[in-house]
């Protein structure tokens, strides 16, 4: 049960130990270990197919791991449905393709989970939703439907929707990769603000400028393994790993 493991318990926010993940016979993650402290901001990068999405999707059980341990806020992620529900309540996720509920207004998208999962009264849920929509700078879109918004606006709604659950940890899986260049900044700005307020976050992204600006640590993955992790200064300037340097030269365009 989650009850004994209140979010405020001590220890790392996310602890991943020797994580293995197979799709059929294909091994997508090999003995991945990672510890993320509360308030820490992690950027994960690496070539396509290296297992970045798989790793962060294991953290809220969108994928089930096959070996090793994942502990989130002191609760181990296993087959216990109570643990899974408890962890999902505390971990928000933002997806590459926004994944808003197209049949609900922006406001309803934001109010749904707090009302049902957290059992927040409607008026409070609405107040919270409006506050976060203000925060992502689209309060005027509350009554629109997702299909009526631009990609950047939709992604900001998705961030607000996750925040309305007041999670302890936020996961971002390439939040800007599906956006046109002029919309990337408006979404990144929101995430930067969030980071500056001390949110624990793990963000998969290829936006290296963003990584430099907010990350406490940059993780480089390749072939289902964490190849290197370092603070951004070190990572971008003095990495000695061959695969890292090759990847950096590609994304930075040198």
């Amino acid at each position, binding site marked *: 049960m989650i009850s004994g493991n209140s979010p405020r318990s001590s220890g790392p926010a996310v602890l991943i130990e020797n994580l293995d993940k197979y799709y059929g016979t294909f091994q997508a993650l090999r003995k991945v270990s990672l510890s993320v402290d509360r308030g820490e901001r992690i950027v994960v990068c690496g070539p396509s197919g290296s297992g970045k999405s798989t790793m962060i999707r294991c953290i*809220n*059980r*969108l994928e089930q791991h096959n070996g090793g341990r994942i502990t989130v806020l002191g609760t181990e992620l296993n087959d216990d449905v109570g643990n899974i*529900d408890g962890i*999902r*309540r505390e*971990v*928000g*996720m933002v*997806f*590459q*393709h*926004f*994944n*808003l*509920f*197209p*049949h609900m207004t922006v406001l309803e998208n934001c109010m*749904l*989970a707090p*009302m*049902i*999962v957290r*059992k*927040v*009264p*409607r*008026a409070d*849920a609405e107040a919270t939703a409006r506050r976060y929509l203000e925060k992502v700078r689209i309060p005027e879109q509350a009554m*629109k*439907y*997702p*299909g*009526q*918004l631009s*990609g950047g606006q939709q992604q900001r709604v*998705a961030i607000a*929707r*996750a925040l309305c*659950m007041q999670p302890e940890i936020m996961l971002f899986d390439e939040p800007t990769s*599906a956006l046109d260049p002029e919309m990337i900044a408006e979404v990144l700005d929101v995430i930067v603000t969030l980071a500056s307020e001390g949110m624990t976050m793990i963000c998969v992204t290829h936006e290296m400028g963003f990584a430099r600006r907010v990350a406490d640590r940059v993780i480089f993955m390749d072939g289902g393994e964490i190849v290197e992790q370092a603070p951004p200064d070190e990572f971008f300037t003095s990495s000695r790993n061959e695969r890292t340097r090759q990847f950096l030269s590609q994304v930075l365009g040198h």
Partner: protein
Amino acid sequence: MVSLLRNQKVRNALLQILYVGSIAAMVLAGIVIARQNLAAQGITSGFDFLFKSTGWDLNFSLLPATANDPYWWYFLIGIINTLFLGTVGLTLATIVGTIVGLARTSSNELARLLGRTYVDIFRNIPLILQVFFWYAVITHLPTPRAAHEGWGFLLTSRGLYIPFPNVSSAALAAATLAVIAAIALPIWLGRTSRLSLPVGQRGGIQLAGTAAALACAAIILVAGRLADSPLLDFPALQGLNLRGGLRIPPEFATLAIAIAIYGGSYIAEIVRGGFKAVGKGQVEAALSLGLGPWRVFMLVRLPLALRAMLPILANQYVWLMKATTMGIAVGFTDFFMIVALTINHSGQTIEAIGILMAGFLVINLSLAAIFNRINKAIALKGNQLRA
């Protein structure tokens, strides 16, 4: 001139004119020939026959009907019979289709296999054969004296006998409304914004609403019962015949079952397609917010699948509505059969077929119009990005 013929708009218009013109010519020719033939046989055309009495009986009617009634009354009964059979058949087909379709999308391998087998079998046998099959099954049930019995139901070759409340028809109608309310009330209570209680905590109110509506139905039934008779009328053997209860004639049962099972196999595929069309991303987003599997189904998968299904479902319903004309194969007096009998007895072929076509057009266009409205009302707003 040549350049004018190359203009796309001109071309389309010319094609339209040719098309409409040729159809009009065919219809006109048909009418002229028919008139000549009819005159030769001494039959007067026109709709006067509608007010003559028919002189034959109906084997199934929801309204009183005798051989003295005029044709127009019989046509009305035919339309009502068709609508009744259609409503029962489509409702059952939808239930069957939903169950089979969900089985086909389930994660359980056996359920998927059963669902697939069902669809493969019943979709690939022509409806007329299935109608004959079920008719054979039902008419080979035992005679009333040796009827299969269970829970007060009797299965016989003379029909299905079911227990039926001994109440006035007004009370019966009111009770039916109350039961519909019992189903609709919790749905409304679960979605309305008039309650300040959060959606997740409305179970109690919803349960109370249903209980109250059901209690109303029970009170109406008890209050409306006919004097000096038991509340529920069980069918029972008296002499050589069955008395009491409600008799569902074999012809109606056959068609309802055939449409339910055949239509169900098509609807199952539509249901499956609808659920497959729901983006995995929306489901994952709902899960990541902590919603449980039931809530994800009710709040995300079902509403999105319904929107994908509805346009195709409307087509299927219109199609199944036309399938009620199979009534003539087993002698159920639906609209089509009454028209056929009318032609036999009165000789007013053109007029009767005209009425038949107009009737079906009205029924099916109304059905399509209703679905169009629902579709428009629930359509997703804005551009949909397929992720």
